């Protein structure tokens, strides 16, 4: 008897593998999809060509005034190159740019390694970025000590101011939000009521009205003769506003922790703050990392609103530069540049939170 020998399997049909298979599966699987792909593809290509042409092929990259851009029909990136110092440093004196440069460098050095898993001493860097870094930067930027020339806050501006607002807001809003969230779940009715009122009040009004309030009403609240700096008032407004949002995010995490954890920590005889700090909060904060980072991103984007009360952040410097008659109509170029700056930071933050979420994914979720 002959032994049974199966024929070798046939390869899959050519239309299901390789490029053709991919195209068939993802673009032309049904007649409706084929039509959709063709129509949408045509629209995309026909709109992308002029955009690319404007942004790259017919664009001007060098020059010092509007004459450089009069020749072409494309974007005038020379404008950005010409004004880059104002966008980055605002009206900070040019001779002192090095102080901001050091701060930018420190920012990169203390946060850059956080993206690499293998880097040692990450925790110490984190501690430094929350404690030493702000202090060093504050003295470097404002001066007035260690022989540095004092520079008033009115001259701070550009990307440096945006980052400063966002950084201080983030660092202050997180602990404040944690306290508010714990207060909202407190068993003491007075504390709870106050926290609920505080959170709902700030969450119910737009940030711009908070900023208006901090600029027109705060001077009325303070005793005569005492006055805050405009920048500080804006910072207080932003921090109050965002900590209310942060509190709600963290409350979500606190609610998601099973009751058994609370009871177990009590059974171990831990005090309230110990059980919160060692058992509940580490789990709760880990659960809501995406929400916390989303609040950070919202805060970062909301810093643009300070231009309405007259602070010169990056968007305000762009706004001021595009109306300069020295350059023609460069509004689009300016806005695209500012948008790109914000996009890089916000997109980076959201990607970082996704990777952190994957890394800390140790249970809870199935």
């Amino acid at each position: 008897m002959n032994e049974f020998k199966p024929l070798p399997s046939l390869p899959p049909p050519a239309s299901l593998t390789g490029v053709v298979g991919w195209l068939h599966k993802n673009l032309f699987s049904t007649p409706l999809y084929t039509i959709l792909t063709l129509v949408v593809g045509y629209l995309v290509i026909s709109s992308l060509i002029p955009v690319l042409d404007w942004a790259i092929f017919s664009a001007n990259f060098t020059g010092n005034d509007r004459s450089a851009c009069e020749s072409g029909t494309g974007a005038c990136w020379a404008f950005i190159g010409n004004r880059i110092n104002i966008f980055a440093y605002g009206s900070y004196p040019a001779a002192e740019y090095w102080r901001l440069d050091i701060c930018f460098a420190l920012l990169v050095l203390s946060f850059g390694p956080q993206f690499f898993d293998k880097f040692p001493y990450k925790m110490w860097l984190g501690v430094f970025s929350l404690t030493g870094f702000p202090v060093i930067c504050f003295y470097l930027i404002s001066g007035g000590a260690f022989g540095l020339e004092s520079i008033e806050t009115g001259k701070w501006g550009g990307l440096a101011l945006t980052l400063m607002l966002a950084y201080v807001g983030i660092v202050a809003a997180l602990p404040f939000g944690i306290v508010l969230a714990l207060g909202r779940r407190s068993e003491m009715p007075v504390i709870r009521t106050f926290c609920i009122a505080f959170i709902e009040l700030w969450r119910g009004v737009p940030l711009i009205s908070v900023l208006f309030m901090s600029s027109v009403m705060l001077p009325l609240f303070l005793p005569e003769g005492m006055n805050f700096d405009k920048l500080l008032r804006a910072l207080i407004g932003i921090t109050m506003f965002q900590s209310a949002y942060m509190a709600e995010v963290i409350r979500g995490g606190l609610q998601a922790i099973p009751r058994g954890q609370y009871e177990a920590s009590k059974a171990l005889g831990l005090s309230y703050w110990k059980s919160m700090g060692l058992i509940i909060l580490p789990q709760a904060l880990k659960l809501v990392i995406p929400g916390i980072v989303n609040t950070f991103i919202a805060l970062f984007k909301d810093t643009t609103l300070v231009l309405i009360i007259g602070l010169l952040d990056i968007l305000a410097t762009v706004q001021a530069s595009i109306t300069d008659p020295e350059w023609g109509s460069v509004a689009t170029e300016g806005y695209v540049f500012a948008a790109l700056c914000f996009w890089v930071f916000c997109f980076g933050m959201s990607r970082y939170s996704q990777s952190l979420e994957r890394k800390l994914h140790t249970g809870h979720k199935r």
Partner: protein
Amino acid sequence: MADPIQQPDVDSHSKTAIWNDPTFRSITFQVLAVVVLGWFFYTIFSNTLHNMESRGITTGFAFLDNTSGFGILMSLIEYDETHTYGDTFIVGLLNTLLVSVVGIITATIIGFVMGVARLSKNWLIAKIATVYVESLRNIPLLLQIFFWYALMRTLPPPRGSIQLIQDAVLLNGRGLYMPAPVPADGFGFVNIALLVAVIASIVLVKWTKKRQEATGQLFPAYWTSLGMIVGLPLGVFLIAGMPMSLDYPVLKGFNFVGGMRIIPEFMALWWALSLYTATFIAEIVRAGILAVSHGQTEAAHALGIPNGPTLRLVVIPQAMRVIIPPLTSQYLNLAKNSSLATAIGYPDLVGVFMGTTLNQTGQAVEIVAMTMMVYLVMSLSISALMNWFNKRMAMVER
């Protein structure tokens, strides 16, 4: 009782120091909190009174009856310089509500389309939706508003208007011009017909539901009501001899006269708000659809339910439960973000009331309080409405 086991002396063992007693602690903390807060608010209050006195600012709401003396770019009610500050408040409020409602509608439509498109099996469409969401979501809204406004200002002057529909719908640097409907005598009948149709539809839907629950028979209630709501007023309109004329915009001198005009500030704000909020809604919709387990779809198919009804009766109702709570907060965000209108000069509540009126009268406390109150009431009522809706949609568990 001759129990040999001695009860331990409870009192002597649990006698803790008074500062370790939870009840005592809690009361102390609360009293402390009340005192500190009371002192804080008292200081603010007395400082404010003192400061206002020394600056000669009057208090109270009497200023609302004073003549405002400034015009407003766009108003839904009759308004000019001779009206009072109270009227400017109403004008601003209506403008805020208008842009919020219109924005919410468009943002919902764009958001749902994009959310579904991100899940499309068609690679190109899914990628376009992803690029849209990931790019616009990460750019500040204020920047987007400025961008659209700058784009609006590059439009040609009235003489070189872009004719979207020849001599009827025109787009230029001063806005979008459209023919305005002018109702004539007898148009009231059309309104009455519409009202009747709406009431009849509600009754019909209720009856259909009852009959389906009793007998299992279906009745195309939604199509019938749609037909009634469109058909009845249209029929009355035709029978009454079309009691309406259109007022076309006409170029006179350097500008258009007549017709309806949508100011560029409104369009820029509307577009930016819709496109920005839609990115968040798209993510919410996508998460909601993904949250419905695949088993549900398979079970529906196993029961022989076709694709359309599966989506309509099985997937969407379950996805809506996940979608509604975050959707509510996006609606609230949109309403609050509409206050960014100030930056481009759209006359919303913050712009005309907290801006111009405050600068003219100097009554900061009253004006800021009124404005914040409006937003608070708006927020709380939208969230109350959505909570009610959410309760109706929520899962009834055994």
